[in-house]
């Protein structure tokens, strides 16, 4: 695990663009964990990933649906675990089955899933710096996620 690296975005559009660049470099089976307060840009970021994968459906927050699926070049599974109370709830929505599909899995409010995750994921912490400015702290664990970070670094200024 390298120490954390970060990207600064100045507005929603830039946050979405980072998501798109990440989508351009992603490999099947990638798990992306998105942490951060409401309005910090998590769903905006996922819209960027969806745009990269040519998903035709409009991305909306899955807070009420728990899991949204977006078919595209690779299927994007967008989850929001905010409303779940415990690990049993998580198992009862079939969470583990999704982890082993060849799609991209983006999980907002991922804390409940920690015990079920394989040791390869990209964790992104969204921090609100000012009204529009965001700091995206990235941590990659596992080979696949570290390669994704490397790919992204060729297009984006990732600072230490």
């Amino acid at each position: 695990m390298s120490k954390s690296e970060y990207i600064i975005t100045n507005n929603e559009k830039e946050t979405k663009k980072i998501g798109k660049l990440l989508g351009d470099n992603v490999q099947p089976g990638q798990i992306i964990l998105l942490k951060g307060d409401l309005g910090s840009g998590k769903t905006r970021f996922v819209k960027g990933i969806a745009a990269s994968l040519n998903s035709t459906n409009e991305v909306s927050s899955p807070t009420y649906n728990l899991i949204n699926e977006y078919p595209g070049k690779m299927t994007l599974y967008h989850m929001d675990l905010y409303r779940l109370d415990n690990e049993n709830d998580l198992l009862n929505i079939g969470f583990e089955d999704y982890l082993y599909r060849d799609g991209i899995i983006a999980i907002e409010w991922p804390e409940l899933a920690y015990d079920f995750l394989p040791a390869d994921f990209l964790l992104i912490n969204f921090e609100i710096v000012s009204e529009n400015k965001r700091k995206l702290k990235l941590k990659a664990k596992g080979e696949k996620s570290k390669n994704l970070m490397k790919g992204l670094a060729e297009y984006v200024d990732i600072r230490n």
Partner: protein
Amino acid sequence: MLILGIDSSTEMAGISLLADRKIIAESNLALYRRHSERLLPNIAHLFQESNYEINDIDGIAVTLGPGSFTGLRIALSTVKGFAHSLSVPVVGLSTLEVLAYNYSEVQGLIVPMIDARRERVYTALFDNYLKKDSFRKKRIWDDSTLALKDLSEKLKSIPSINTKKIYFVGNGLEEYGQIINNFDLNTNSANPAFNKPRGAVVAELGENYLKAGISHDVFKLKPNYLKKPQAEINFKKIESE
């Protein structure tokens, strides 16, 4: 006695009609994630082609897993619907027992294994060296999820394991055959056709249970969805870095 057997706990969808231990119809299809679309139409097709009616059945056997979460839910909710409307007894079976049952007459230890991804398997152990009157009683280990290296260690800790033949069976073998061959045990493999749970085997094993007077309260049956062990990740540490 007409038994309907249903399994959709892995990528396979196995269904069968068995009349007094004779196969009337059987369908085994690799459906992967299309179980929800295909299970009911395939059952309907089986009845149409075999000139039986769903009302003719005397019992249902269904696998409860371990296996794919979605597949298990689909089979069990379908069976609950049938059992409720037809008032027939239901037997819930371990998918691992169904796999092991293929080898119920073989002298050896039987290790059924279903792929749980990333070098882990759902597994159990049956000891055919035991002279028991039913295959069910030869079970030594409950169903559990094990990393392959832990399975190897666990098997090696069995007393006089080197004098025993071990038969591995299931789709875990297709995925991890090489690793299992390197276990350094007296390893034997199943014929490939035995590596999938099959509808007729589900029905036959179910009939054994029913004839032994064993059936289950269908409304209390639950899928046996085993949690997969993961590498322990210290998220506190990761997040504080």
